[in-house]
């Protein structure tokens, strides 16, 4: 199973699939949660889910220290209140004390909800139906709590979609005094950053796939590659608001990293340039202006 999941992922990476297949939300869901399942990386799964944000409270999903996870892909959930439904993934997370959380995932890539709210009758909105089905399922599996996560490719929360679902739940299913329903939103775009340090090959491939599909967030624009001495970024290790150059180097302690040498090391200030005045103000870091970067030869570094 792990091999077939990997093969599909690789086929997509190599653009061996049709355009329709490449933009399939089922395939994307399978690639993402299949990679989580077969990598066995529960920490990463927990970190991803913890990025989900609730529409009503604005708070993030509280994810336990996950020790075990049961994955169910496209399960058919029955519910006496409404017609059955099929969330894309249902996860049963268990922590070290055997407390369980049921999390339903409804994923959307390039399409909207499959059904919308109606004025009367039983709830018909896709997310509303799934929320109700998960609530019933929580009782069936004996979970301590449940949440529905709306997973999309948006840059920000698709508030109208979620509000429509919550409104239908409020109107039809929540009694006065009940805790109002809430739905969390999460974006596929949060994932590549989290996958940056992943070691499992399938997770590294997943990161490439998401980057290839432009399912990434804005990360800023790096300065261009150059043969000039590297631009160093200095981080204050002491509380210094203003620094008029030259300053007694002995009393200042800096940590530095450069784009050529990302590891942060301590830095001994060498011969003090006498002509430049810098203001740190309240910023925690400042970047050496490239045009006045001293020749690299004058710097000495001590690990």
């Amino acid at each position, binding site marked *: 199973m792990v091999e077939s999941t990997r093969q599909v992922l690789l086929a997509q990476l190599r653009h061996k699939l049709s355009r329709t297949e490449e933009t399939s939300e089922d395939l994307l869901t399978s690639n993402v949660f299949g990679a989580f399942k077969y990598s066995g990386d529960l920490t990463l799964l927990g970190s991803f889910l913890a990025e989900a944000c609730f529409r009503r409270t604005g708070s993030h999903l509280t994810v336990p220290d996950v020790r075990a996870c049961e994955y169910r892909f496209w399960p058919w959930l029955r519910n006496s209140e409404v017609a059955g439904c099929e969330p894309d993934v249902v996860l049963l997370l268990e922590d070290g004390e055997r407390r369980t959380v049921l999390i339903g995932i409804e994923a959307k890539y390039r399409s909207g909800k499959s059904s919308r709210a109606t004025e009367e009758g039983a709830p018909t909105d896709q997310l509303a139906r799934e929320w109700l089905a998960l609530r019933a399922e929580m009782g069936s599996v004996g979970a301590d709590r449940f949440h529905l996560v709306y997973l999309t490719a948006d840059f920000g929360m698709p508030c109208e979609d979620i509000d429509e679902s919550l409104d239908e739940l409020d109107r039809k299913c929540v009694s006065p005094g009940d805790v109002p329903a809430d739905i969390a939103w999460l974006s596929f775009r949060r994932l590549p950053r989290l996958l940056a340090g992943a070691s499992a090959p399938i997770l590294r491939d997943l990161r490439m796939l998401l980057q290839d599909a432009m399912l990434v*967030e804005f*990360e*800023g624009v790096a300065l*261009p590659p150059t043969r000039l001495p590297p631009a160093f970024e200095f981080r204050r290790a002491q509380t210094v608001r203003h620094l008029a150059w030259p300053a007694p180097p002995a009393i200042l302690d800096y940590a530095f990293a450069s784009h050529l040498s990302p590891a942060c090391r301590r830095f001994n200030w060498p011969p003090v340039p006498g002509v430049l005045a810098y203001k740190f103000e309240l910023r925690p870091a400042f970047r050496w202006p490239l045009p006045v970067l001293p020749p690299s030869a004058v710097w000495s570094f001590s690990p």
Partner: protein
Amino acid sequence: MTDAPTILSAFRYVHEVLKQTALLLQTSDQVLAERDWEGLVGNTCFDETSTHIQLTRRWLPHVAHRFYGTDAAPLVLLFVSVLLDDRNNEYEPMDECLLTAGAIVCNDKEWGDHWKLWWGRWHGFQRPRHDDGRIIVSERKDWAEQSDADAIIERVITKGVPLPTVRSTDDLRTFLEPLLREVEVYREGS
């Protein structure tokens, strides 16, 4: 294989800049949609390019922009743009690509279609121009020359910062917030 820059690596770098610019502007769409500002130009984000053999200066975009409007403030045309180049040396000196945003306030009832895409580059023309994020307000009554097309403008508010200083969605929100506060007065009923 060395780390030495090549023309190929330079081109790939340019593509990465354009990709991040696109992500930044899509994030801007979403951030402003949360405040009821709707995009006005569909998926379009630049113009003034050319495939002509002799117009090499137009082969690459010099600006990427998004324009927004809201029924709640029909006098205001909002834009967010990235000034990638001063192609024609028109601006006050520009040392780095700029993220800019602005509000162009109409002196009529509403904008309709009476606005221009080049207005997304307005910050570049501000004199004096400050690229430290401060708000710059320019009043039409203070302009020496005006074209007929510009006569409909009452006031222009812009701000800009060097593009590399914006590194996240939160940075973008922080950048836009003062401008959004500034245009609140134009909301009907405010």
